[in-house]
């Protein structure tokens, strides 16, 4: 028999702690670190037929965000595309993803461009990527308009 006195009862914190851990586990499982590479300020064009493409099993795609001024951003920072692609090619050679001097790369390039980007700016980016051997491209679009 418990010898607790009439006053001074302590609340049992175990269930609340258990609930908190459940919530923590949920948020840990759904946290998306790759979202940091997406520039969410861009307004992508809307295409109902666009579908998320599965890149598992293949090389890690290269993600390029292009704003209305034609600036290319990777991981949130504007980059010089030539230097970034050259660095990317060296990295893939080092990690064995590509052979040195290989002209063509199997790495897909995901292009996320704002809907207002004029074609000549987009074309410059694509031509730079083609010069570095990238052939496979995925043009991103929203499947539906985002809710306001």
């Amino acid at each position, binding site marked *: 028999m418990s010898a607790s006195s009439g006053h001074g009862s302590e609340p049992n914190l175990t269930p609340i*702690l258990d609930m908190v851990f459940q919530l923590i586990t949920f948020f840990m499982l759904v946290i998306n670190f790759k979202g940091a590479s997406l520039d969410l300020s861009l307004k992508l064009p*809307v*295409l109902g037929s666009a579908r998320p493409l599965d890149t598992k099993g293949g090389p890690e795609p290269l993600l390029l965000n292009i704003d209305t001024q034609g600036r290319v951003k990777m991981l949130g920072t504007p980059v010089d595309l030539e230097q970034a692609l050259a660095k990317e090619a060296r990295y893939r050679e080092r990690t064995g993803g590509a052979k040195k001097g290989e002209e063509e790369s199997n790495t897909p390039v995901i292009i996320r461009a704002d*809907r207002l980007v004029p*074609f000549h700016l987009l074309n410059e980016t694509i031509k730079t990527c083609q010069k570095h051997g990238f052939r*496979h491209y*995925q043009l991103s*679009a929203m499947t539906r308009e*985002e809710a306001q």
Partner: protein
Amino acid sequence: MKRRRHRHARAKQGDVELNLAAMLDMAFQLLTFFILTFRPAPVEGQLAVNLPPPVAQTKVEMPTDPNAEGDTPVDTDITLHMYVTANDQGDAQQVRVENNPISVGPLDPGKVQMINKRLATVFGVQTTPFDRIQIAVDGRLRYEELMKLVDVCTRQKKSDGSYMQKVSFVELPQGQGQ
């Protein structure tokens, strides 16, 4: 009486009590962090295209009516050329397939559907040799307008039943876009 209370107090000293307050505080800190960093990913999809660098294509005479099925086999190029001109606002002005205008004005859903039907007619011909589409684009055209055309092109089925993925872009020289 005092001895009994003292004995009781000594017995209580042997109990181990776990203070959960500190652990709960830490757990709330973690929870707050994950709640603040949680951001649902936007619903995005992609259109896959192969974009080999544009090469000079030998321009061959094409019949003006893409629906024509003459008896005489025509030795044709395997690239279907599409031309898109735009105005200063970036809207499409005209869309031509080879030399045939198929759409005039901005690309609304009705015009996109019409372009799709015309292309489907071209690719629906069993002897169609086309296995790639080259889109010559006015540099001023907005990306969202271009994507409508790319979407239409990638929905076309080639004679072998596979979907068109070889779509390449070239920029129309300035002056030709007007």
